């Protein structure tokens, strides 16, 4: 994100949203965000509605990425809580997932009703294959920054082997390998740093 030309003007726009505004804001976001809601979220929260400044948004997003759960889900909760307490958090979260839930269940009804039809089965097979392709592309994009970090690649490969090859449960895998991931990264960065 480029630095904002006039942060002062942006601050002047700021005002605390009501619970209803939190609900409608995130409702629109849920309906318009395809394949990643994050860029849309920043536009709505910072540029269009002025609920947060750019740096405030980045800071809050940092927390949401640090904690478990979807970034945008966590962001809706944090923002709602900050402005309108628990009611605001609930309004923002429900607003965010209400419309996508209705749409996804509608698609699920269609799939259940028609997946014995050979044409529909072929259509969904093609759709599912394309969705796998999108996921591979995302994996490649987030893996790219590791390309010159052999230690990071080894740790990523260990997770891959545990989950995709050995099919181990996630909880024990995380308990053992997550601290290893943090320690190995810390050690290798300290070694390369002067």
């Amino acid at each position: 994100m480029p630095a904002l030309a006039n942060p002062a003007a942006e601050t002047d726009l700021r005002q605390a949203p009501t619970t209803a505004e939190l609900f409608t804001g995130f409702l629109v976001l849920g309906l318009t965000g395809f394949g990643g809601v994050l860029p849309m979220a920043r536009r709505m929260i910072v540029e269009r509605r002025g609920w947060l400044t750019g740096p405030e948004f980045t800071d809050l997003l940092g927390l949401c990425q640090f904690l478990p759960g979807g970034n945008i889900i966590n962001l809706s909760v944090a923002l709602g809580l900050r402005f309108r307490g628990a009611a605001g958090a609930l309004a923002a979260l429900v607003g965010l997932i209400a419309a996508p839930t209705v749409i996804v269940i509608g698609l699920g009804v269609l799939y259940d009703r028609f997946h014995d039809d050979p044409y529909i089965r072929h259509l969904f097979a093609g759709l599912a294959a394309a969705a796998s392709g999108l996921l591979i592309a995302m994996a490649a994009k987030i893996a790219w920054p590791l390309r010159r970090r052999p230690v990071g690649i080894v740790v990523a490969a260990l997770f891959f082997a545990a989950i995709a090859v050995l099919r181990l449960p996630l909880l024990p895998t995380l308990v053992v390998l997550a601290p290893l991931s943090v320690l190995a990264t810390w050690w290798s960065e300290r070694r390369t740093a002067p």
Partner: protein
Amino acid sequence: MIPTLFALGLIFAQLSLLAFGGGNTILPEMQRQVVEVHHWMSAQDFGALFALAQAAPGPNMMVVPLVGWHVAGWEGLLVASLAKFGPSSVLTGLCLHAWERFRDRPWRRVVQAGLVPMTVGLVTASAALITRSTAHDAVLAGIVALSAAVMLATRLHPLAVLGAGAVIGLSGIGQI
């Protein structure tokens, strides 16, 4: 019914608190639980539900209410959604104040950077497992490869890629 709902709640509450690095990191565990442990659906069905969720707008975890609904109807939808979005949201609320104190600590940056290789490994595992349950023949494997290449090389909208995949699938070329 009640044991099924209880199991759904337990699975998704656990996934909620383990989803470091976003939703796609927990897909393999979700698939393992609903396909291999509980036999609620086939791996192919799971791949199809994931694809439907990708075709819908919104956050990328919309496969959760869909799985709940598929397994146990409306009650399943409600239980899975509450269990998946509740615990992580409560944790976010609890950490909101503490964040003011720990965001500038050096360990915060070390931990966040240190979890990147983990996220890469888990999302790559997701991609491999979902692909294995969807690429049943040469044409479908071709759609997978082409979609991935197009997404990496162009700025085409993901919905256009999904639509193209569905149309090629509908033509039935190469499928039994």
